[in-house]
């Protein structure tokens, strides 16, 4: 099993956001996590990536390693990648410089050869084609002044460059028009491989037309309350959470984070 989450709890202050998440993801699989706002989807993504704001109990094993014991940078080196819902703008740090620094940091920790500027530029340009990104993005500061769609494409570009084993996409589709969605999904599908897994967090069935999941989970109130195959997403789309008999309103107390 690539990822094994057992009884994962996460809280900020007295506010418990994850209330016992259990999830297993095998290599080669794509899992979708759906759920209403505030159900804990983004918190799960952040906790897996190593955000330090949360008090955490439970276990997470990633390729049989204790993921929770690793720093965020060590998780990246181990092959974990989070495409952020709200990628942060970093004025003064050039996109190309940042990408090469990230790439070489990860390569170094994986015991692989680092690339010089020219070598990296060649790689980056090849990957930029996948997400139809203009070369001028490289000379701009990280995400600074990028439109919502450009930021999401930059996330996918980073993913294609860092070549993670497990990619978590946190509402990468939110705020995208249909063309941007196609581009982003194309980048994601280009990365699908038998030795790579993905967790796709989304509000909408729409994305799952492009990235077809092996498993679909419904998260409510900090727990995964229902799991199924891709038809579960269609069912949700048709009937809503209430239609599946899921009590959503009563879980408002857990509302934190994820707002589109």
């Amino acid at each position, binding site marked *: 099993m690539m990822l094994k989450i057992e009884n994962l709890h996460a809280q900020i202050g007295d506010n418990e956001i994850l209330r016992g998440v259990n999830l297993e993801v095998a290599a080669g699989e794509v899992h979708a996590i759906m759920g209403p706002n505030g159900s804990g989807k983004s918190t799960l993504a952040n906790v897996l990536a*190593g*955000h330090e704001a949360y008090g955490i109990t439970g276990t997470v094993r990633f390729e049989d390693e204790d993921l929770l014991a690793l720093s965020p940078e060590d998780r*990246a080196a181990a092959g974990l990648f989070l495409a952020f819902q709200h990628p942060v703008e*970093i004025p*003064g*740090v050039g996109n190309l410089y*940042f990408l090469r620094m990230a790439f070489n*940091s990860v390569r170094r920790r994986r015991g692989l050869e680092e690339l010089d500027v020219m070598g990296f530029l060649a790689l980056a340009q090849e990957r930029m084609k996948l997400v139809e990104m203009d070369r001028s993005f490289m000379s701009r500061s990280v995400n600074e002044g990028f439109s919502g769609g450009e930021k999401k494409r930059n996330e996918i570009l980073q993913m294609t460059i860092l070549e993670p084993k497990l990619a978590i996409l946190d509402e990468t589709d939110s705020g995208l028009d249909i063309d941007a969605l196609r581009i982003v999904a194309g980048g994601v599908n280009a990365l699908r491989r038998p030795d790579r897994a993905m967790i796709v967090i989304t509000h909408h069935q729409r994305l799952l037309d492009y990235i077809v999941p092996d498993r679909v989970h419904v998260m409510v109130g900090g727990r995964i309350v229902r799991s199924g195959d891709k038809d579960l997403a269609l069912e949700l789309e048709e009937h809503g959470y209430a239609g599946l008999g899921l009590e959503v309103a009563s879980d408002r107390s857990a509302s934190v984070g994820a707002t589109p």
Partner: protein
Amino acid sequence: MTTVTSTAKTSATAAPTVADLLSRLGFRPSGPSPAWLTQARHASLGWATARGFPTLKDEDWKYTRLGPLLDVPFERAGDGDGAGRRVSPAMIDALTIDAASTRLVFVNGLFAPELSLLTDLPEGVTVTNLASVLAEGGAGLEPFFSRPFGEYDHAFTAINTVLAEDGAFIQVAADALITAPIELVFLSDAHGPPIMANPRSLILAGPRSRVAVVETYAGTSGGVTCTNAVTQVVLDEGARVEHYKIQDEPDAAFHLALLDVRQGPGSRFSSGSVALGSKIARNEVRVRLEGEGAEAGIDGLYLPRGDQHHDNPILIEHAAPRCSSRQLYKGIVDERGHGVFNGRIIVWPDAPGTDASQTNKNLLLSDHAEVDTRPRLEILTDDVKCAHGAAVGALDEEALFYLRSRGVPHEAARALLTYAFARELLDLIESESLRTHVETLVTGRLSTDSDGTGAHSGD
């Protein structure tokens, strides 16, 4: 009881007076001195003795305690005590930005011709040392010495007037365009008693001329020094002057400096300073926009750490119509460092159409780092556009997490974000070789601790 005792102790050792300091430093203007200069020195001596040292009650000195400086028994650098012996050509090479540049080197305020480079001077510019100009009578220089700072004079600028013997003299003829930066290197070097130096420099830019000057302050470690420097700049109509200053004196040094600028009509002045060194440094900049349509851009980066104190008192006077001024100061304060931005803008009644802006941003890298930021606007006319803003904050935790989640190690991510904070100022440096030089200094600073190790204290 304890409190009373300690109070009594403090008052028992009376703070030294201006007269005490001057008598120790010896008021003995050397060489053949013009009569007006002797007169000007006496006038400043009388004024400073009567006025005394500034205290924390003075608005412009409110954040800089002078006690540690006044407690040091400074002496004047002597001619026969081997001052400057430890300054080698290799040391000058390391401080030089471009080996081919015109360069004046001063050790403890005195010209060191053997370390300077004055060959191949471009046409239309005089570059020499002030002492040699004064030795020839210093025609026309009287206004620069006869109480030139008026109500803004203070004990240290007055002491400089009393004691200054040497410094740089740069005069650019009308329409002359000097493209390569002229480098001025001021070294402090004390290996015996503490030394105080009082360099005085003049930069006079003729009508429509252009010149760039870099002042570098550094020193040998070991002794205690105080640099009390004054640089006066005058821009005639349409002149353009770029001034840069790198203050990288040893950690035991004291550094007090005034950059005093007067601008004629349509002139453009820019100042970029970076403060890295000294125990206590006060880098004062005063710009008086006297001619219509003059423009000034005053920028600074200060990086105090350890127990360093970097004070930046700025005074911009808008005294003519339609002038513009812009200030951008950034502080990166680590460990127990203390940064100060004390920026004052005065818009006089006869300065309609003034456009003034002032920005001060500070990054605190440790819980013990301290910043005082104080904008002071005094606007005495209508029809003015004035904007000012100040900010103090820590590194953006979300940006830090973002970088780390991409595999960038924690320390590298911190350094990257800190450097990014400074970069806006570095990008303003026009000369590429100078920009690279300053970038190297700043990145070098950000990748080490004050004790010289690579690890970040993280306190």
